[in-house]
């Protein structure tokens, strides 16, 4: 047996014979490079088979299919509210990650009641010393507000176009969970700078939790780290805001949009 490599399929020669644009050549070269190493063509084929098995074909758009041309166009922008929620969420995620470089979730450093804490000071640092920091906080805050607004309006559009009816109940329920989590996202972020209103908003949160019978005290301990506010509260809100909620909300959004993809947008008629 010869050790010399016997390339039966000379893909590169095939590529050269083709009359291709630069983009096509680059794409094919990359594809061949990866495929020689990982044999991804098998997986792509598998994916393709699954795609057709699941009968996910590109349908005509609604306006085409139902010939709704002039009855429907003025509602159309409202159908982008879900995507705009995602967009605002992305902006908040990016700006939030950058704020995270400078923020420290600690109530240390206050000599007397009412003195600035480390958390407060780190936000002051962002506002005053960090290049572009003032704008960054502004963007993060506004992105959050845009997201909440978009989600509210998205819910209204789904309601008033009757898009929640069978078979989309599950997505509606998922949406209710998502709007709750979005609001909690905002709330936990509001607490982080540990300013007066943060503190007292959190205080109201604890009081609400404690007023609930049976599960109340447990919930207060889980979410706020105790019955009075302090370091534990801040760290819990921090972890919820930058770790737990991002994961949960991102996966739920993926599921939500995945279901929309499989079910299609509710046809307006």
């Amino acid at each position, binding site marked *: 047996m010869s050790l010399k490599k016997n390339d039966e399929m000379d893909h590169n020669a095939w590529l050269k014979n083709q009359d291709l644009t630069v983009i096509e050549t680059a794409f094919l070269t990359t594809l061949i490079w990866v495929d020689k190493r990982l044999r991804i063509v098998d997986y792509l084929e598998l994916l393709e088979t699954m795609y057709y098995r699941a009968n996910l074909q*590109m349908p005509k758009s609604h306006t085409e*299919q139902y010939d709704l041309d002039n009855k429907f166009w003025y509602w159309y922008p409202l159908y982008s509210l879900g995507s705009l929620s995602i967009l605002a969420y992305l*902006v908040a995620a990016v700006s939030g990650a950058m704020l995270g470089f400078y923020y420290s979730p600690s109530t240390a450093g206050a000599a007397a009641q009412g003195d600035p804490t480390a958390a407060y000071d780190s936000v002051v640092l962002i506002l005053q010393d960090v290049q572009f920091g003032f704008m960054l906080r*502004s963007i993060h805050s*506004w992105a959050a507000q*845009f997201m909440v607004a978009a989600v509210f309006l998205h819910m209204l559009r789904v309601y008033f176009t009757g898009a929640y*009816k069978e078979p989309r109940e599950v997505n*509606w329920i998922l949406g209710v969970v998502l709007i709750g989590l979005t609001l909690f996202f905002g709330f936990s972020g509001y607490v982080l700078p540990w*300013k007066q209103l943060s503190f007292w908003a959190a205080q109201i949160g604890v009081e609400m939790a404690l007023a609930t019978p049976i599960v109340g005290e447990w919930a207060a301990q889980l979410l706020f780290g105790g019955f009075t506010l302090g370091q534990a509260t801040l760290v819990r809100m921090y972890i919820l805001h930058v770790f737990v909620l991002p994961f949960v909300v991102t996966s739920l959004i993926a599921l939500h949009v995945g279901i929309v993809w499989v079910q299609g947008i509710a046809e307006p008629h």
Partner: protein
Amino acid sequence: MTDDNDPMTDGGTDEEARTDGGPPATVPPDDETPTWSERKENSQGLAQLTYQYFERSRREDEDLRTESTYVERDVLGFPAWPHETIRNLAIASFFVGMLIFISALMPPHFGHPANPGSTPAIILPDWYLYWSFGLLKLNPLNPELAVLDGNILLGNEFLGIIAHGIVFGAIALVPFLNKGSARRPVEEPFWAAVGMTGVVLSLTLAALAIQNFFPFELDLLVTLTFLLPVLCGIITYAVLKTMREGYMYDLNRRYYMLRPPK
């Protein structure tokens, strides 16, 4: 290289000596793998029901597909590139642009550091939680729910929490209460009215949360909080009912042109 008859040990040809105890690890040949229909026949109970249901739904899909006038997209309509892509990019950049513009124009306020010792005169969350905050200020309603010697039955805060439960619960229940294929508000004036009531209620509750800013009495505000939404609901209902006749004629014509009755 290795044939099944080739000895795998150091010279011996004894079949028993080939492996270290277990049977040879072979994949069963294809014709021994049961087909789906064989599996169905072999199964029973829940598994069989599952197969039966799958078959039914397959058949349903198949029927729908053969019956439907549904045309797969060819070149009709806007292509994804460049039309849709550019439109989406335009919407997305406008949105992000506005976001950055407003951030630059109206940076958020930054208040004093937390002081557990002094309660501020006005505690407010961000605007999007005003409605929720309003629900916590329903205590003027609470005594009316009281029985037994005017003792309040529920703590004021717990009343607020129950109110939250009712709001979220009601929203979650909507798809199970309102069924049918109607989509447009004119087709179902009642549900549009319910929606408007909800929207206005969320606004009036927000107003209740910032009650200090209103120059009139709290009682009046609480009354308005519930009266205005109902009023708006009634108006919506009346307007849609009036519009309905003419509108539905058009809608039905269009609808039955698309799906002629069987």
